């Protein structure tokens, strides 16, 4: 269990750094979702299923959607 948690934390922190370093905002957004999903896993580890569900739905899902919509309106969406 500890090994899994350690791996998730490392991936999460690396993605968090990547959010700030990626030049492409879409890639940064993807890294942000990875952070949210990792966080959601950690919430399960600390026995908070309600919070984990919320983080997955809001942090990884809804926030990313909001960011994506905004990036498109701001002209920072490279895939377009």
């Amino acid at each position, binding site marked *: *269990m*500890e090994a899994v*948690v*350690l791996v998730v*934390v490392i991936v*999460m*922190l690396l993605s*968090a*750094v990547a*959010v*700030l370093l990626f*030049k*492409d*905002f879409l890639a*940064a957004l993807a890294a*942000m979702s990875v*952070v*949210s999903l990792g*966080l959601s896993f*950690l*919430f399960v*580890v*600390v*026995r*908070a*299923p*309600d*919070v984990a569900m*919320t*983080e997955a739905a*809001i*942090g990884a899902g*809804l*926030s990313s959607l*909001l*960011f994506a*919509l*905004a*990036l498109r*309106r*701001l*002209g*920072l969406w*490279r895939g377009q």
Partner: protein
Amino acid sequence: MDILDNNTILYIAAFGLMLIGISGIVISNHLMRIIFGIALLEAGANLLLLLSTYHEGASAPIIVADNIPTMMADPVPQALVLTAIVIGVGILALALSLAIRVQRAYGTLDMREVRLKLEQEISDEAGIDMPSSSEKPDDIAKVPLNSVVQQESGS
């Protein structure tokens, strides 16, 4: 794994997220990155709040079929984090809406430029010369509109 028990790893994650978030806010100038930084900082603070009374071996604070566990996790921080996450998404949406309007008006999301243009607008409205700012970076003033955004997103 004596030094790296579960608790330590989780605390490192929480403080690490907060530190990375703060660096994002302090170092970058582009608004989107600052918003990302705030989101990371909030995520770290949420995790810290949940960890505040975390006990290894506790079960989730839910009773399933009359089976009352001996040790349940503390439900209070969970409720608090639930609240904080929802507040966070509300403010995030607001920040993004404002960002769209500000970019439409000023043509940039670089916060230093936004600040300069804001000063300019206030001064124009008041009918006075712009106060000389000591922080005014020369390179910024010369860069044409939009190009900073493209530099950030492109290449």
